[in-house]
């Protein structure tokens, strides 16, 4: 754990938890209406974020993390996805109730997002420069040399070498890491306050991953960004985030500060996730794994959905009801029958 802790100390910014509330999400519910039934991808998630804060959202694939991110952008897959309940308060206004035209004002300028796969996130037939300038002109009147200058500046910001020459390059001429940087530059081109990063490093190789994380972290501090970092890797969360939310089957089962969660995980699922991260200071012959498969998100029975895989399940688990959030510390809550 010591390596992780030292990383936390070096990377943790000083701006934490002092700013204004940037985003407040209350009981958000996003369902997907598919041919096979209703999928409750996000099922009653509540949390709030302050300016300059970084929230890590952790969970297995298919637990609803990505749908959560897309719900905030209001870009759910059509026609299946729909937000069916809850509020997302941003600047005191409810995003869920906004019209498509109003949303377009918010997207990119206020809330932006970086997608998982840099190989497909750029239009293959437009040059990098064209895609950048197109983004800049959405919200500004820059023209000619000033516009190009701004594009170069953005590329420099994401530390792309020789940015001026890169403007003419096409996406297929760049490596995955470089492309992801360009995607980052496009996402940040209109200076949004909130950035949602959806597994931005999953498809990059390890060295590129580390570089990208460092870049993201420094940009967050410099621009005072509010960052929602979606990942399945607890190691990354420890390096980058102030707070951690653990998602399981569409529900936020545990939420708290990074130290709290790491030192004192409460939910059995969180414990399993942390145990399954390899550590340098412990000699283990086998990494811990979670038995069973993540549940499919439609036709979930009432009651805790982790129960079939849970090592601590017992008679205290009521089968007919999902546990309510229980505060187990300062800014730390958990949804588990153990703490009711």
């Amino acid at each position, binding site marked *: 754990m010591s390596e992780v802790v030292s990383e936390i100390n070096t990377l943790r910014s000083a701006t934490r938890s002092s700013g204004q509330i940037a985003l407040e999400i209350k009981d958000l519910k996003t369902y997907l209406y598919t041919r096979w039934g209703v999928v409750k991808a996000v099922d009653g998630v509540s949390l709030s974020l302050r300016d300059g804060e970084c929230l890590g959202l952790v969970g297995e694939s298919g637990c609803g993390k990505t749908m959560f991110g897309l719900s905030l952008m209001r870009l759910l897959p059509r*026609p299946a996805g729909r937000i069916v309940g809850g509020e997302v308060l941003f600047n005191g206004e409810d995003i869920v109730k906004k019209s498509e035209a109003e949303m*377009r004002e918010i997207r990119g300028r206020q809330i932006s*997002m970086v*997608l998982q796969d840099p190989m497909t*996130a750029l*239009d293959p037939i437009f040059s990098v420069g064209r895609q950048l300038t197109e983004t800049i002109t959405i919200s500004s009147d820059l023209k000619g040399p000033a516009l190009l200058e701004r594009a170069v500046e953005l590329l420099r910001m994401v530390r792309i070498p020789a940015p001026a020459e890169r403007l003419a390059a096409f996406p*297929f001429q760049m490596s995955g890491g470089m492309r992801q940087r360009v995607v980052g530059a*496009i996402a940040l081109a209109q200076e949004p306050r909130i950035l949602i990063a959806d597994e931005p490093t999953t498809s990059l190789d390890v060295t590129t991953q580390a570089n990208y994380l460092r870049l993201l972290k420094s940009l967050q501090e410099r621009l005072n960004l509010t960052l929602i970092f979606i990942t399945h890797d607890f190691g990354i969360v420890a390096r980058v985030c102030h707070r951690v939310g653990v998602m399981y089957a569409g529900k936020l089962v545990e939420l708290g500060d990074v130290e709290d969660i790491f030192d004192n995980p409460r939910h059995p699922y969180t414990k399993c996730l942390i145990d399954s991260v390899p550590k340098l200071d412990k000699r283990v012959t086998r990494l811990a794994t979670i038995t069973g498969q993540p549940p499919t998100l439609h036709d979930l029975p009432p009651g805790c959905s982790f129960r079939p895989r849970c090592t601590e399940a017992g008679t205290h688990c009521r089968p007919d009801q999902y546990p309510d959030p229980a505060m187990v510390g300062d800014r730390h809550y958990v949804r588990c029958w153990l703490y009711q």
Partner: protein
Amino acid sequence: MQRLILMRLFYGVITLVIVSMIVFILSRLTGDPAALMLPLDATEEARINMTHVLGLDKPLYEQYWIFLSSAVRGDLGKSIRFREQVGTLYMQRLPNTLKLAGAAVFFVLIVSIPLGCFTALKKDSFADYGSRGFVSVGLAMPSFWFGLVLMQVFAVWLRWVDAAGMSTPKHYILPAVTLGLGMAAGMTRILRSGMIDVLDSEFIKMLRIKGLPERKVTFRHALRNAFIPPLTILGQYTAIILGGAVVVEVIFTWPGVGRLSYEAIMSRDFPVIQAVVLINGAILLFANLLVDILYAYIDPRIRSSV
């Protein structure tokens, strides 16, 4: 880019030589052209004389060589039926076919772009089902019968247009629709599936994330990407226009290349057949080359790979 064009040209010329061989052999497999050119009661002497004049008494490879070398010089021989230079004959008919082809392509585009692209934006809507029905029926429609039905309905019953003739733009409607229906259906299908693939892709999501107006997402990005695959079959469609035009030109008695070749085949006018096949092959080659260049112009990946 230049290398690509040169390569294509080289292969194209080889293809043309092979085509000329196929047609030459086919044309010599049957009948005796000399017998066709002479009156039925011609004497044996006249027949031998004619055979000699036409060079038919020479060995086959020599005949082919004569044919090929004069074809390269632009001399495609004389029509047996019309006793006229094939080149002139072809050139008289070509404008009519080109005009019809232009009208057909216009029809294909105005039908397939709205049906293919905009129904893909509203997948599983009423309009989308309509466009899918159009595709299925259009691809299954026998064009010669469709032409007859159109004539019956619009020329005979409703009297909106005339069934034959080509003097006014109105005359172009029925042949162009008949010729274009199958292609419009095929084009709609390709555009639709391409558009759906593109709209599903991550980069479209990214464009929406950055707040680009939906109009620009559709026209500037989605449509341009979705147009790449249909371009490659444009060459194929040139062949269909030149070939399918046979049927349509016969039905609507359109004096174009298609009917010229139909009549040539039916009366075994082999110089004309050979010439038509060769020129069609050359046009196809040229069209494919044009598509390749266009393709490279739109898609930077191709531009830099060659």
